[in-house]
């Protein structure tokens, strides 16, 4: 047994303990699903760098650290501490999860239109398990890796959103996942399910933050079913502490003429891996994936995207950018599979990486597999430094070299944020981006 999978044993113990606790409370299909997931986790084991999908991302630190006990204690996090994470001027529904558990008293759910359900997943699994059965664990499916299996086996809480046909939720649904010191050195397994039936629409913000906890592991998973003509706007904002580990998954199925727009912004974390999988399963579906990662120190951010064009006339747009400083490392792998039936697919993928230091490194791998003959597919990947000509131009206009660098860095990254439709979210992220620069004040005037 390799050292990585020696660590697995401790996780299996956690799984067994969890199964014993929940056995009597959970419905049959869920118990079966968890058992299968646990078995798959056991069979797969933690991935090693010999696995092509994990070639550049070594998860040994996560395994070694042994985040084997699941956080369940919703202690800490008072309203004042949370207030700084709410978006200014953004009305809407706010759900707070403290150390993985839904906290009703800290949440504020506004009036929802008839036919819209926004609830704690734990509660939904008890009250209306039959509604979840055909989606839960089915969207992420078999293809997923060990972390997905681990999440499915352990997931206790998160959000369940269901939109009946034609239901439009105007205000965004903001999900705040807070980790307090009570969850230090532990594992969190948030799990979300979003079901948008025909013609419905909503915007959901998943927001991961740290409130003083040290060295923990978030293993999050979200499944989204976008029905015919439905539109889901999804945000995944990760601003966890510099010693936090984060593995996240977004698995989506898109119906006929539906639309999924997903933004992934990573501003924190020590080791981050995100998998986005979108299956355009019916004609005319449209998928947009935008991503920004700003990594410094010894941070490591890995984004894997996988878009399946299954049926004709699908459109996908991917736009990921990264800024890397210090000894940071970034990985981007964008896989697009155009299936034989997916004629008139229009797919475009861009990944640009800006290296601010000599020791930073980025690996970018576009992967196009095209089995249909009448399609438009384009991709572009770059890894580079700041444009010396632009730098000289600004300096020749009396702008300090370091300020000019910050300005160009900001302009590079903001390009992604500019695509965010929700202004309060965009503005907060722009401010956060500026805070990460050396010369805040002058660049702030850009806003």
């Amino acid at each position, binding site marked *: 047994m390799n050292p990585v999978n020696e660590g697995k044993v401790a996780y299996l113990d956690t799984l067994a303990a969890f199964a014993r606790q929940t056995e009597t409370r959970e419905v049959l299909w869920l118990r079966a699903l968890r058992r299968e997931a646990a078995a798959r986790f056991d069979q797969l084991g933690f991935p090693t760098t010999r696995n092509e999908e994990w070639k550049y991302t070594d998860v040994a630190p996560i395994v070694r650290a042994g985040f084997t006990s699941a956080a369940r204690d919703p202690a800490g996090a008072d309203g004042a501490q949370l207030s700084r994470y709410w978006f200014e001027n953004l009305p809407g529904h706010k759900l707070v999860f403290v150390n993985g558990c839904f906290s009703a008293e800290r949440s504020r759910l506004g009036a929802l239109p008839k036919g819209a359900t926004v609830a704690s997943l734990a509660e939904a699994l008890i009250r209306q398990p039959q509604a979840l059965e055909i989606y839960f664990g089915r969207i992420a499916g078999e293809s997923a890796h060990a972390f997905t299996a681990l999440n499915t086996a352990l997931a206790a809480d998160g959000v369940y959103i269901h939109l009946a046909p034609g239901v439009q939720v105007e205000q965004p649904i903001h999900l705040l996942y807070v980790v307090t010191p009570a969850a230090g050195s532990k594992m969190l397994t948030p799990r979300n399910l979003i079901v948008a039936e025909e013609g419905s629409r909503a915007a959901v913000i998943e927001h991961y933050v740290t409130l003083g906890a040290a060295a923990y592991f978030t293993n999050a998973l979200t499944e989204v079913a976008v029905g015919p003509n439905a539109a889901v706007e999804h945000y995944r904002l990760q601003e966890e502490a510099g010693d936090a580990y984060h593995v996240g998954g977004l698995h989506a199925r898109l119906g006929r003429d539906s639309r999924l727009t997903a933004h992934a912004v990573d501003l924190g974390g020590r080791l981050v891996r995100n998998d986005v999988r979108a299956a355009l399963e019916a004609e005319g579906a449209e998928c947009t994936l935008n991503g920004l990662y700003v990594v410094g120190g010894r941070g490591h951010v890995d984004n894997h995207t996988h878009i399946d064009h299954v049926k004709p006339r699908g459109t996908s747009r991917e736009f990921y950018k990264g800024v890397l400083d210090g000894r940071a490392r970034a990985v981007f792998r964008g896989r697009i599979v155009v299936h034989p039936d997916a004629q008139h697919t229009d797919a475009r993928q861009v990944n640009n990486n800006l290296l601010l230091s000599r020791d930073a490194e980025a690996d970018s791998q576009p992967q196009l597999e095209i089995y249909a003959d009448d399609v438009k597919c384009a991709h572009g990947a770059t890894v580079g430094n700041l*444009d*010396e*000509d*632009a730098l*000289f*131009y*600004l*300096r*020749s*206009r*009396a*702008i*300090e*070299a370091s*300020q*000019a660098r910050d*300005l*160009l860095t*900001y*302009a*590079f990254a*903001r*390009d992604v944020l500019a695509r965010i439709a929700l202004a309060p979210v965009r503005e907060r992220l722009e401010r956060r981006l500026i805070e990460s620069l050396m010369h805040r004040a*002058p660049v702030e*005037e*850009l806003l």
Partner: protein
Amino acid sequence: MLSIKNLHASVDGKPILKGLSLEVKAGEVHAIMGPNGSGKSTLANVLAGRENYVVTQGEVIYRGKNLLASAPEERAREGVFLAFQYPVEIPGVSNIYMLKAALNAVRKARGESELDALDFIALVKERMKLAEIPEEFLYRSVNEGFSGGEKKRNEILQMALLEPRLAILDETDSGLDIDALQVVARGVNALRSPERAIVLVTHYQRLLNYIVPDYVHVLASGRIVKSGDRTLAQELDRQGYGWVAQEGAAASA
């Protein structure tokens, strides 16, 4: 104001300037002409402080100080301005932001207070008229998607706003139609004053019909081989560069 003595400079290890000397006093307009590859743009870039232009010998004194010792931004703050031959496109940085940051940095260096937003806008709008730039250009990214003429007019706007002591225009006239050329000329002529000096680097004498220089210098093979008044430019226009280059070669032989 500017005293260049025996300047030698290389680009990527290749010697381009080979003993160039030039004296420019306040209030003067100098035209530097010469065939392609003679080193005109190298001179402009060395004066502005571009990093890959290495000075191997000689000195440049600007207002009593060694210009070569300072960083590009310090030179700009001291009043040196280069209008680029190829202005750079900077996506994501708005023109107005760059103009404001530049002006405030220069004003600070001059011991003046920073302009507030209203005064700044008023000043920019006034100078935009001079450079004939529509207002919408303020809010666009620096030079991004600008036509060749628009980029050059944007350089003139920056110059008019920053009011440099020493303005160096690197082939600002190249590729311009007659209307744009007149805009450039008006911008330069408006700046002419007893306290300022202007160095026009140009291939053609056409610009000099609109900006009358006090001195014309011919640069060939990295040195000034002939100097004169504006009639020299007219002579070059009639006869080309061949005869001066030969004269220069004969003189150095």
